[in-house]
């Protein structure tokens, strides 16, 4: 798939937006550990803002950042949300209630339990009646999101790929470790424009070496499924034509040739 990358949104531990993070990703500034700063969901009407769980706030923050930097309206674009597990806090709350003496669930918690919770709030927040989807491939969710968003972009229009993950609470955290909150948005298009940051050539391939250049970023990449995007962002920030490999399934990976424009 030949695509153009128009904008990036990024929130992770010590990574506060694409602009601020690019020098770290390029190796020109030191990586300083910090917990992920998730801003309030300014896009949402007050009622929805109150009801929205943290995963939604994270996804909306990185989505809004990418669209603001590209200077285009989200309401015109399709969106693909990729998450390795939906909203863990909400799922845990439901499971705990169902295990208790009175199995009465909160209606809001129930509708927040769907995997496409971020896609739903995103369309409400932006007024976008365009398609929004939500998918999962466990540790390979980021790569899966890239394939789906890429295929949508080839069919026409600009497509936002939003990948995000937050740690589970216990006891699920012991069964499924996710190191920290991390969200990323890539705005993809099949046509070049003045906004285009890079050309991406994406292909399926056999698994190989996924490692980030910077050791601290490699630690994040291994620790959070959505952070599997970091080799691509490093290549983009370094502004050198290079091919990186992104982790997908046990027997399948993606190569992405990044050609900065």
């Amino acid at each position, binding site marked *: 798939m030949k695509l153009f990358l128009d904008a990036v949104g990024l929130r992770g531990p010590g990574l506060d937006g694409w602009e601020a993070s690019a020098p770290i990703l390029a190796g020109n500034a030191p990586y300083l550990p910090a917990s992920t700063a998730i801003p309030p969901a300014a896009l949402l009407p007050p009622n929805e803002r109150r009801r929205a769980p943290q995963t939604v706030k994270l996804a909306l923050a990185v989505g809004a950042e990418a669209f603001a930097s590209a200077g285009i309206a989200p309401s015109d674009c399709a969106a693909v949300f990729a998450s390795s597990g939906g909203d863990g806090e909400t799922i845990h709350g439901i499971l705990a209630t169902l295990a208790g003496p009175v199995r009465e669930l909160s209606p809001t918690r129930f509708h927040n339990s769907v995997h496409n919770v971020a896609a*739903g709030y995103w369309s409400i927040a932006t007024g976008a009646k365009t398609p929004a989807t939500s998918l999962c491939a466990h540790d390979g969710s980021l790569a899966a999101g890239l394939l789906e968003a890429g295929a949508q972009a080839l069919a026409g229009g600009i497509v936002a790929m939003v990948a995000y993950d937050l740690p589970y609470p216990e006891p699920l955290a012991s069964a499924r470790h996710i190191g920290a909150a991390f969200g990323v948005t890539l705005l993809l298009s099949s046509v070049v424009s003045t906004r285009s940051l890079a050309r991406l050539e994406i292909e399926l391939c056999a698994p190989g070496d996924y490692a980030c250049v910077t050791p601290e970023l490699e630690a994040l990449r291994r620790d959070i499924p959505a952070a599997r995007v970091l080799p691509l962002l490093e290549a983009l920030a370094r502004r050198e034509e290079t091919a990186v490999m992104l982790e997908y399934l046990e027997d399948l990976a993606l190569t992405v040739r990044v050609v900065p424009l």
Partner: protein
Amino acid sequence: MKPLLISGLSLVSALGDGLDATWNALREGRSALAPCEFEELPIDAWVGEVQGLDTRLPADFSVFDCRNNRLAERALAADGFEQKVARAIATYGAQRVGLFTGTSTSGILTTERAYQTGALPDDFAYAETHNTYALGRFMRARLGLAGPSFTLSTACAATAKLFAVASRMIEAGLCDAAVIGGADSFCGTTLFGFHALGVMAQGPCRPFDAARNGISIGEAAGFALLERASEAPEPGALLLLGTGESSDAYHMSSPDPEGTGAAFAMRQALADAKLTPEEIDYINLHGTATLVGDAAEDKAVTNLFGPATPRSSAKGFTGHTLGAAGMVGAAVAAIAIRHGLLPGSPHTERLDPAFASGHVLAGRHAAVRHVMCNAFGFGGVNCSFILGRNAP
């Protein structure tokens, strides 16, 4: 879109295993809904339960064992589907057959049971049962597929959207054929969740009835095998002709009463299939029998098609099978086309007088070439797709 050949299709629901069992129930007007007897989830509601899901998965796949994956396994055995996938692998190679699954519940019933014991067991298989991709992981291992794969989870429109995914993935050259489909099964999360929302019907659900009062939940699994159609497909071949997707941008769990997003998805599907509304012979409605949802869909459908196009919802037969509803829709569409049957709507006694006249309450025979299927879900997600028979 370029039409895709649907070379395999399977369904397991409370109506039985396979398209023939489904057809028999549809033509007899026989509903599978009954008061809930699922013992670990006591709830005063009618449901469409799939019987016989107590058998564990084969030993080689025991790590995947959970109700949802057992249901998916049953749908591989139905309609010779597994053999059709084997043929596709022989033709294209395992890496060139994509696998795009859909579910809303995945195997969360297993986690619910674990929470009731106070701790997750040491052998709790998160990735193989609980995780949304558990279904895709199981199917990929079970079928020996090695191509691109993910599980799409957009609530009750999950499997419907897979028709659009498959057409784009094949068009983008990421695969030559695609296995799509999925399963949704009973769990406390959905049974008590819909109860909390106050949308569970008293008695069986009655889509588009003047006295409808909510949904009945059902279980189902189904799969389809899609391939590029040849320049001249065989006469009578079943084809995917078009898909349309949209968002309501209205509310997380309540549809836009104007049906604007739903209408947008239907118009997109028609444009994608290069068909006019007059060329659609039957509409398989989402029709879950909620007050607002049925009214919004009737409005959207009637605005686009006029009052007369025959239409019905299968929810009175199977219950609302949530993420699997798209596969129920595809199976009903295939049966309507193959057997010339316009299915009725059991339990719907008196059509809401506010609705258009095209609603089919008692099944009848008619020539059917093109069918539109609708599926809508939480988050305001809408999807429509069109199946058709290649002209003889």
